[in-house]
């Protein structure tokens, strides 16, 4: 098709123009730039998180994370609202129950997944991962649960509560940093503690727990909304 080949040509032109220059100018860096140097050298003493990425994302540049949470909140609001089944046409039990295998597997996997998710976000300052990843894992657990027990009824209200409160606490911690420490989202109003221990890095574990709870409950909420056999409880 003429049109498509024109588009292909255009895309190619775009690629050549943009990346030709960028790749040519790109040099494998020899040493860290000043920002990275600062973070890597001072993070341990300033924040005390083993995972520098976490310190950057939660403390130094915590506004990014707040933005991410906001984006997920917006997306979840819109998805939850529009994918919700209309009350009137709700067949209470339309789907066959999940298979035996699924049910059994879920009994093992669901608690394990939830614990894994919690572990990931609680240890966000020590190991890779954090609130988002942990939350997503929790969401997956709920998905498993929903798939295995289509008739299983969980009150979505609980998730709404967890989501709202954890979100609010996150913002409140941010403001606490502003009021008690150096600035908004400064996590150092709690003691830095000992490096590599669970209760270290100031308020980072707290923040990541809140994010994990929020993201997990948001995703779970969406999944439950989507689960057709789930009677509407609100």
């Amino acid at each position, binding site marked *: 098709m003429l049109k498509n080949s024109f588009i292909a040509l255009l895309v190619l032109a775009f690629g050549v123009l943009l990346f030709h220059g960028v790749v040519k100018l790109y040099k494998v860096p020899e040493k860290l730039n000043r*920002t*990275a140097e600062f973070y890597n050298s001072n993070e341990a003493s300033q924040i005390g998180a083993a995972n520098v990425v976490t310190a950057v994302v939660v403390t130094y*540049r915590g506004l990014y994370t707040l933005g991410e949470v906001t984006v997920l909140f*917006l997306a979840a609001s819109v998805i939850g609202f529009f994918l919700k089944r209309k009350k009137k046409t709700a067949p209470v039990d339309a789907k066959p129950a999940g298979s035996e295998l699924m049910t059994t597997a879920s009994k093992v996997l669901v608690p394990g997944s939830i614990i894994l998710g919690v572990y990931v976000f609680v240890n966000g300052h020590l190991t890779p991962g954090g609130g988002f990843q942990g939350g997503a894992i929790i969401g997956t657990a709920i998905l498993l649960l929903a798939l295995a027990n289509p008739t299983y009824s969980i009150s979505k209200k609980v998730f709404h*509560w967890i989501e709202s409160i954890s979100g609010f606490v996150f913002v*409140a911690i941010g403001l606490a940093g502003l009021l008690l420490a*150096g600035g908004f989202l400064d996590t150092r109003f709690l003691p830095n503690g000992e490096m590599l221990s669970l209760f270290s890095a100031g308020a980072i574990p707290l923040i990541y727990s809140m994010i994990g709870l929020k993201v997990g409950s948001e995703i779970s909420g969406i999944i439950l909304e989507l689960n057709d056999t789930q009677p509407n409880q609100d």
Partner: protein
Amino acid sequence: MVSPYFLLGIGLGLAFLLGLLGQKARKSSSILILVALFSFVGISFSWLWQFLQENASVTQFFSAGFKPPFSIALQVGLHEAVLTSMINVMGLFSFVSLWRNMKDGNEKLGPILLILFMGLNMLVLTRDIFNVFVFLEITAIALGGLILFDEKKHARSAGFKYLIASALISTIYLLGAVLIYFSNGSLYLDDVMALNNMSPMAIVAVFLLILSLVLELKPFPANGWALDVYQGANPAIGAIVSAAIGSTMLFLLYKLMGMAAFMQEFLIAVGLISFIASNLLALVQKNANRLLGYSSIGQIGLIISIIGLKDILGDQFLFVAFMILITHFLAKAGLFWLSAMLKSDELKAWSVFRKKSVLLVLFGIFIFALIGFPPFPSFYGKWTLIINLAETHNYYLIAAILIGSFLEAIYLFRWLGYAIKVDFTEYDEVKINWEKLIPVLTFGALLLASGLYMAHLMPGIEDITLWPLLFILAIYLLDFLPAYIKNTISIAALAYFSFIILPPYYEKDLLRFIFLGIFAIGGILTLIAGYAYKGKRRGFYPVALLMYAGLIVLIQAETTLSFFFGWEIMTAGSYFLIIRGKRSMEHGLSYMLFSIGGAYAILAGLGLTFAQTHNIDILSLASVTVHAKLIFLLLAVGFLTKTAALGLHIWLPGAHAEAESDVSPMVSAILLKAGVFGLFILMIAMGKNPEVASIAYILGWVGALTALVGNLAAAFQEDAKRLLAYSSIAQLGYILFALAMMSHLGWMTAMVYSLNHFMYKAILFLTIGAVVLRVGTHSMYKMGGLIQRMPLAFIAVLVGIIALSGVPPLSGFAGKWFFYNAVLEKGWYFQGAIVFFSGIVAFLYLFKLIYSVFLGQLKDNLRQVKDISIWFAIPIYVLILGIMFFSAKPEWVLQPLSDMLTQWYPNTSLSFDGLYINSNFGYWSGTGVMITIMIMFIVLLLWLWILSRKVVKVKQFNIVYSAEAPQRPETTHVSYNIFAGYYKALGWIVAPKISELWNKISDFVVSVAHFGRMIYTGNGQTYLVHILAFIVVTFLWFLN
């Protein structure tokens, strides 16, 4: 200073917490959101207060207690305070305007709106380049969510197009942000701005950042998605997109341009192309919201180019940008909110606002503000912009800006015209809800207040220019009163004004005294005729006074700025006066377009003047040296559109003829003198400059030809008021010709003609208007024999045409006498002959006028008609007295005039000797002629009276028709098409070639617009291709 992080805390904290309330507590959650938005306003206003009143200094607030670039900084300075104040006010009122949409189970709408506005605040405040990306995406998702809640038919597909476009654009931004980091190891804007020389990588990065922000601002042609959003989404959301998001993105662009001085030219080009193209394509748009979209894109394009002009404008940059931005912000939001009140989005549906005059007035305010009329901020913005561009010799940019503005004026005024004139019965009525009304009212009031405040601050605008405007506002508030009360107030106001302002000018400046006198006395006299109207005459007095206020400001102006101010006010007022007539809409529009075109020519001329004199004193025109020809030509064209010189005249006949009976004399006898005054100012300046003699020569020819064509065309009219209108064109041609002679005698001629034209054209238009009110038609062949029923009118017309034709003894003769003297002295024999010939033609139409209307056979249906209203008769006879006085004692007026003109032309052959006026070519005595002619007249009258006793009277029906009733009145009126023979011989001169030319031009423009908008196929993917192509083309441009 309140930390900006509280905005984040309040916005997000509340949005998250509201999940607890659930669906049932919708009302309380709405109230909480309202409180939060209020607190946003409070915070940003507190900053504003601190910067304006306490001279606070720019402060950066760091996150996490570290310094940037290791943390994120939010900066609060005056600019940020202003922008966030605008955005937060918009947020508050947007929420109010969407109040009812919250109800239908849309409990998530409120939090999303709150987050949207919080995101916009952060975009303004943040100094971190990547943080901008985050909040760009937050606003995009929030806006997408808002659109999704919308029940309008095509909102969803429009929203999807928006989402895919913004996904592509924000990825470009992301790449730019990341490359910035890799190139210099910092995402802190101030760091990048502090770089002395950027690495190539940084340049590519900055290029991508700016490119993506420009794409967010919807440049032509990569903006189809935006147009669809404007059209498809709820207008209340359109208001947010256009006003709040548009302003934010513009500020962001301005902020990031701190790193990208090398892209200024790109911004100028892209902005102006968008400005012109979208205003062009809007010409053929019939959907109101899409039209607003085009207009938004145009305005934003203009501001983009202003951002590119930052270095060129220097100190004035912020002023210009802010003036135009604030106008766009307030007016566009207001217009979208108005649109939200209507069910139909056809342009013509806006006519229903006619029933709610408040809304109609708001509509008018928004339109006039957008086009840049005074007293709105954009007027000062455009003025300063043009002046500064001229000063820096960017003439092409001036031309581009004025062309774009002109195109914008065309469709906006046509739209306003629909609202004022089109039949509204087929459209649903507006139901005014408080939550829809409050935002519009507030923004309209803010617009007006900001304009008046600006006028107060602006150097070069005298404070006195504001009082009339405030008075007009007061009159508008009294619009519910009956007409006679408002009429009395208006007359009193004009009289008071004349009493206060006029007398000092007699000593100070006679020229201005005369023109002010014409406006003041003419205004009072024509207003007296207004007593003839019953009822309330809604809307008449504010606009009539607006015109007079403009005229007065114009004459009093000491600076070019206030001259232009007055010129525009006068144009606005007269436009509204003209379109009051029954069939005058298209004429009103063409009047407005010629006026605006002319005004832009004047603006360009004044701008070029300022560029070399650095002075806005109106006298500085005389010291023009560079480009003098161009400047004077531009100014001349501007003034000639008002005096309707040949080629620029096609608006006048319709506009004057279709206006109301007492409006025609206002716009003919009085308003046209504004153009004459302008020409006087121009000629005075030109007189001192030998370089531009050729322009005077050309103007002389234009004047002569205008006189000829005007008079000929008048002779072929069957419509009495059109006849008078063409006669005005011709008379103004005389004046132009006389002025162009650039001599003492020539200017004497012009002055005498101006005074005379004022008096006799007022008499004729008032009388014919009064007759029309009685007989109900303009067509002369439907009248006839009215001398029997309307002797008062007959005498008035008789005096009027004697004065106009220039035969002794009335004052028209004085004009002729000076005219011949001046021509002989100047030696313009050929042109003089043309004017002389056209004077003969004038006899034809004057004869036709009085014969067709008053002589011949009285029509059956007019047998019981009464004489003209006493309220018309009073001003008419006062003016007749004036003519008589001027005719009997011309030297009382002429001698001071002559003395006044000697300040420019000291050598003159004219001398005054008692009753005699001498020149090189002869002498003349007004009083003597008057006495002689009166004696002859009385003798003749007596003789006729003696003869008439032998006359046998014949009944009318005996001779006119035997048994048939006339089916077509025109065939039974002997003077119908009376000059058919002449038409065969000379008709080609008046064939509407000029109208045809203008029509062809406009057809061409319209077809270009039709063709051009085909690129907007409505396919979201095609829009993406446009964006990609835009990027590729920009790349190629920068590679060169």
